[in-house]
């Protein structure tokens, strides 16, 4: 995963396109550093996401989860690193692949899992399902099922921050597939025009369902998709949580300083299919295996912890055990909770007025 920045990769074009030199530049990347404590926290969080998703996959297979179920396994470093750069009041919004984003926001896994099983204790009272989950308490604005629709919404969250004069930023996640939706560029234009404090994060896991980026995108360097809107962009190794955190720190600072939107392309990979019903025959087993073996975000942090003697194997095993227990508790909760009361069918269509 080569690290590259917009300014580096576009240097050959600069002579031709004079306007690109007017594009705002991102501050340069600093060396990747983290304390032992931070590494342990990342390890714990990413492990929770992975175990949660593995459990969700298992429960889906048992028929306990209905409909669609999009797992985040392999992509954990993205949401973990970005969330670590945010502060209270910063909003997060994403697509239907949203379980891990919620855990990263600090939301209790129990109501998330219970939403997946469609129970009364689910975070949307069982009325949303895996693709439609929200927590205003944790500034998590969904959980949206229409590819790309969350992007103008997220620009609207940023608009509210600016309107209210806060220094909060909004983080808008979307995939490489969504990157070809027109409304994203409508949102880019307004966000840049009005200097909205929004971080656009393309989670490029390289496949839009079964269509690779190469087969769907005339410009495969997605971090450059903001150039014609004067939104600076940068590609980041999205398998390395430290690289993500470092880029996110600079992006957050950029937005808080009122410099407008910024675009981060996270080069990442999902190990599982697009959804539970996708056998992922469009790529080789070897490709997946290679990513897992060489770039796994959790293994990378684990190795760093051990190499830096910030944790022992036993200490990490203890964390594994603790995380497994949390997920098991969530799974039990999600299976034992009652289904919604039939009366819930008719509530919350409109707010009483």
């Amino acid at each position: 995963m080569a690290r590259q920045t917009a300014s580096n990769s576009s240097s050959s074009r600069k002579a031709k396109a004079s306007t690109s030199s007017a594009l705002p530049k991102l501050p340069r990347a600093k060396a990747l550093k983290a304390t032992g404590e931070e590494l342990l926290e990342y390890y714990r969080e990413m492990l929770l996401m992975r175990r949660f998703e593995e459990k969700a996959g298992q429960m889906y297979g048992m028929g306990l989860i209905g409909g669609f179920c999009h797992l985040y396994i392999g992509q954990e470093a993205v949401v973990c690193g970005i969330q670590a750069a945010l502060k209270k009041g910063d909003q997060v919004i994403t697509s239907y692949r949203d379980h891990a984003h919620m855990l990263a926001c600090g939301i209790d896994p129990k109501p998330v899992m219970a939403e997946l099983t469609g129970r009364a204790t689910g975070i949307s009272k069982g009325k949303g399902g895996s693709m439609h989950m929200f927590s205003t308490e944790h500034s998590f604005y969904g959980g949206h099922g229409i590819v790309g629709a969350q992007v103008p919404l997220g620009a609207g969250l940023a608009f509210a921050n600016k309107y209210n004069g806060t220094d909060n930023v909004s983080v808008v996640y979307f995939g490489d597939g969504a990157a070809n939706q027109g409304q994203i560029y409508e949102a880019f234009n307004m966000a840049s025009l009005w200097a909205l404090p929004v971080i656009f994060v393309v989670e490029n896991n390289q496949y839009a369902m079964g269509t690779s980026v190469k087969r769907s995108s005339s410009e495969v360097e997605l971090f450059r998709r903001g150039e014609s809107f004067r939104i600076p962009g940068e590609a980041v190794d999205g398998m390395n949580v430290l690289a993500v955190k470092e880029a996110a720190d600079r992006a957050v600072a950029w937005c808080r300083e009122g410099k407008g939107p910024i675009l981060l392309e996270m080069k990442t990979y999902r190990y599982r299919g697009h959804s539970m019903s996708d056998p992922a025959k469009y790529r080789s087993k070897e490709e997946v295996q290679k990513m897992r073996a060489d770039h796994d975000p959790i293994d990378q942090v684990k190795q760093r912890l051990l190499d830096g003697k910030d944790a022992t194997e036993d200490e990490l095993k203890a964390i594994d055990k603790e995380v497994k227990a949390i997920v098991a508790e969530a799974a039990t909760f999600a299976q034992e909770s009652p289904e919604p009361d039939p009366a819930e069918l008719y509530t919350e269509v409109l707010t009483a007025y």
Partner: protein
Amino acid sequence: MPVEIRMPALSPTMESGTLAKWNVKEGDEITSGDIIAEIETDKATMEFEAVDEGKIGKILISEGAEDVPVGELIAWLLEEGEDASAIDSAAAPAVAAPVNNDVAQPVAAAPAEVPAVLTPAADEALPEGTTFANITVREALRDAMAEEMRTDENVFVMGEEVAEYEGAYKVTQGLLAEFGDRRVIDTPITEHGFAGLGVGAAMAGLKPVVEFMTFNFAMQAIDQIINSAAKTLYMSGGQIKAPIVFRGPNGAASRVGAQHSQNYASWYAHVPGLIVLSPYSASDAKGLLKSAIRNPNPVIFLENELLYGEKFDVPEVEDYTVPIGKAKVVREGTDVTLVSYSIAVGFALKAAEELAAQGISAEVIDLRTIRPLDIDTVIASVQKTNRIVCVEEGWPTCSVSSEISACLMERAFDYLDAPVTRVTNVDVPMPYAANLEKLALVKVDDVVKAAKAVCYVD
């Protein structure tokens, strides 16, 4: 031959205007493309370009003249070698002359059946001694927004041309001056984007009023309106609210063809999670828009371009609001019910007058709110009249009229002495040609005929 210069029309619906300024005086030489005058209506200002070249021979209407009818002769242009005496000889036989080419746009005959506006019965709840201001629907809408913006800092207005241009149809006139560009925001032409951005801002607690230049363009944004605005409250178990108003003109305007002449009332009324309002009078426009802005839910507010300039009495009551979800009996009657909304209420009222002259007493109901539909008021009327005609400026299939008909089958079948009848536009895309457009639109005559048919009167 001297050339006639006639009062131009800014739009097919314009009947008269103010000749605000002459940029030329008698004796000036002009060539085609010169701006010779400025014309104003309450809706817009237009520069009047010369088409022919020559010398201004005589100015007949001086600047500042108001209510100059479209097509009126306002000046004479002399061709090369002519002098003022040529005007006298030209003027004599010119009485029946058709509209000259100098007019920038063809002057339409009176637009298809814009009814004389009849003021509906006053609101039942008004205190005695209430005074009324006679204002246009356009002014009423603007006043509603301004009042709500004064009392609630979270209310802002966003859309194409709403700020510096003061509204494509001048509905947001004066708002930028009073509230500034933080709260009155010109957007790019990007309906899907700004609808979504507005919904996001609403989810974060603001109260956007999003103007669509017309609802035809909202089809670009309908995913955000339905999937994001209407459904998120339910999907989030009540956590995420979207207090947003989408407003703008809806339905057929005049001579703008199929893509700009559609009524979306039944489209939005189909969707749980939305409130759909479509007022007729200025007082309802004002009162309902204020209620819409205060409402914590997404509201579709359907206006009508042809009504913008119509004047109605609006109560001079502080903080005048009209309840959402309540239809209004705007004319009482005993023989047949005419139920309608928006511009077609005017057709229904006109039809009721004609029916009265023929001895039939028609009750007219203005639905005002399309969702939630106040079917109880309709049923109460049908229980009295036992006959009903639904009048709708829109397509018939799966229309609001269809819904009323279905509700009456379920809940008032035993009270009906004749089939529920729909009088609507014709089931075709809106044609452009004046005669075809007239044929496609709902007409007062059709309402009269349908009402007589359900009364079994020839």
